[in-house]
């Protein structure tokens, strides 16, 4: 018994993870250097626009990892995960709104422009405190977490599973979409929150701020990976996979399945919230469109394309799909949705384990080994 399968030495047996983290570490330093230190007319200069775009991809990658945690490992197909991302984004957006101060169109020191426009005279109670960065950051984690807690508690306790759960998560994000469209709710309605000026006193348009935000996105992505990796290599991680593969068995050997599902769901929602908070200052706007059910479905496609239950596969999928999206929507705007649908079909039929699964298969073939018999259970 020399080998023990439960070493919590994250990257020791995690070749993919090593590569993933190394690439991120290199990008995290090289891209800022190429932007700030290399002169703008040089071939090697990375324009700030690209840096921000990359930062956006990284926050999407973080969201994808959050979904992979609940879908890939626990078998909960959440079709409303973008809602947690958007809530985190709104919390960050509220902080950024308060930072505008009297630089808005109406020059009101207290109220954001849209509230002045609505003839509101004072700040609603739920906007209090968002002028403080630390408070906003707590809300970034707390609000998505609380929503996931309440929603998950109701759903998992009632043993809602499979496609029914997916449908109610869609309903959840759709309900939030409709709610945030309303002006009276006090989140800027249709237009959302935008025209941000600065964050912690730094100008959001400055190259250094943008590069820092990119750097932070990469850093948080790495931290998220470590956290998730720690969880899935722990005994709790094995219980979660056990729930995915044989829920009843898990229950009858004495685990309270509902608690485990709830725990992982809430954690995942919190990670999604942080991803949203990193996303908003980089794109400069958050509006109800982020709650759109389509976003959550696209998110599932990223994870499926990358490869479920690998974590880094989900991140890879997010980057691949979003890069294609940026390219295709610019080059051939009308084909994007068809391309996305086609991609999803191809992946489901030919690469059920995504890009990472395909890669592993090819490697095994090259080494002349037999394919492992055990197939991941497909939801």
């Amino acid at each position, binding site marked *: *018994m020399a*080998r*023990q*399968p*439960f070493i919590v030495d994250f990257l020791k047996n995690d070749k993919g993870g090593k590569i993933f983290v190394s690439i991120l570490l290199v990008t995290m330093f090289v891209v800022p250097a190429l932007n700030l230190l290399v002169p703008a007319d040089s071939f090697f200069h990375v324009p700030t626009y690209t840096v921000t775009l990359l930062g956006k991809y990284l926050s999407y990658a973080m969201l994808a990892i959050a979904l992979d945690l609940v879908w890939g490992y626990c078998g909960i197909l959440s079709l409303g995960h973008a809602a947690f991302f958007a809530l985190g984004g709104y919390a960050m957006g509220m902080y950024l709104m308060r930072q505008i101060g009297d630089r808005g169109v109406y020059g009101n020191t207290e109220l954001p422009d849209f509230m002045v426009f609505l003839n509101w005279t004072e700040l609603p109670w739920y906007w209090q405190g968002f002028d403080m960065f630390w408070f906003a950051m707590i809300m970034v984690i707390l609000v998505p977490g609380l929503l996931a807690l309440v929603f998950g508690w109701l759903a998992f306790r009632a043993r809602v599973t499979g496609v029914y759960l997916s449908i109610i998560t869609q309903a959840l994000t759709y309900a939030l979409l409709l709610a945030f469209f309303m002006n009276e709710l006090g989140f800027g309605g249709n237009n959302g929150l935008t025209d941000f000026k600065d964050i912690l006193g730094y100008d959001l348009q400055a190259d250094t701020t943008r590069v820092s935000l990119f750097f932070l996105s990469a850093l948080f992505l790495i931290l998220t990976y470590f956290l998730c990796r720690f*969880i899935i290599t*722990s*005994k*709790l991680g*094995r*219980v979660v*996979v*056990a729930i995915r*593969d*044989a829920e*009843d*068995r*898990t*229950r*009858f*050997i*004495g*685990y*309270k*399945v509902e*608690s*485990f599902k709830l*725990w992982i769901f809430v954690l995942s929602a919190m990670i999604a919230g942080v991803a949203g908070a990193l996303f908003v200052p980089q794109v400069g706007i958050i509006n109800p469109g982020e709650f759109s059910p389509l976003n959550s479905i696209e998110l599932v496609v990223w994870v499926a394309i990358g490869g479920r239950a690998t974590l880094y596969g989900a991140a890879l999928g997010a980057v691949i799909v979003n890069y294609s999206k940026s390219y295709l929507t610019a080059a051939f705007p009308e084909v994007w949705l068809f391309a996305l649908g086609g991609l999803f079909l191809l992946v489901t039929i030919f690469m059920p384990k995504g890009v990472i699964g395909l890669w592993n298969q090819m490697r095994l073939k090259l080494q002349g080994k037999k394919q*492992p*018999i*055990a*197939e*991941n*259970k497909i939801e």
Partner: protein
Amino acid sequence: MRRDKVFDFVEQKRLPFSGRRTVIPGEIDVTHGPILYLENISVSFDGFKALNDLTLYINDGELRCIIGPNGAGKTTMMDVITGKTRPDTGSAYFGQTMDLTRMSEYQIAHAGIGRKFQKPTIFPQHTIFENLELAMAADKRVWPTLFAKINTAQHEKIIEVMDTIGLTELCYERAAQLSHGQKQWLEIGMLLMQNPRVLLVDEPVAGMTHQEMDKTAELLKSLAGKHSVVVVEHDMDFVRSIASTVTVLHEGSVLAEGTMDEVQNNPKVIEVYLGE
């Protein structure tokens, strides 16, 4: 000997409002013999009576076989004992004090009732070792599970059980790669890891070769005494080879009970099995 007739009424703690007895976890009172009391249990699904006034006692340390034609209510009975199905009427007690109808699945598992399903149900993506590790008696709440480490005693326990079920060499193989019979054993091994007082074993030899069947019979017999073992099985030769007492279920209630010979010569049983 009904459970309520042997109650030590004077000492009973009762809940203030409902007047029902408290569930005392961890205390299995078998001073009166039986470890499982099923009394007048009825369960119906959409008008179909899966269990009909079933009354059955299992003694502590006993090896009991339960047989009966399809639809006799064998699996439903196990569902009631393990908390998966709530009875419409009747009571199910574990020892004298634990009301199974008011406990959830995981609480019942913690109290000491382990269950093997009809279709072998193991965790296919986990190794044999991990399957046993997950089943192992431990603090199974969320946070302790996140930081759980295996200690030496637990490691030895896993190895001991792996020896018992003969899967030591396959320790780090994924469970999905096991043969049908090996999966059945792994599932029994997982039950053993829980240190249960009662083992409910649903069709343990389905799909097994004769050799495997003999091994399984030996295993189950060796478990009786330390544990109470309840086996639901169709294979009569197998039942004959292990059982001291056999209970025949029919249409949701007990038709006959006794040794295998008594049961086989019982005219009611013959009628049910051979048809009118």
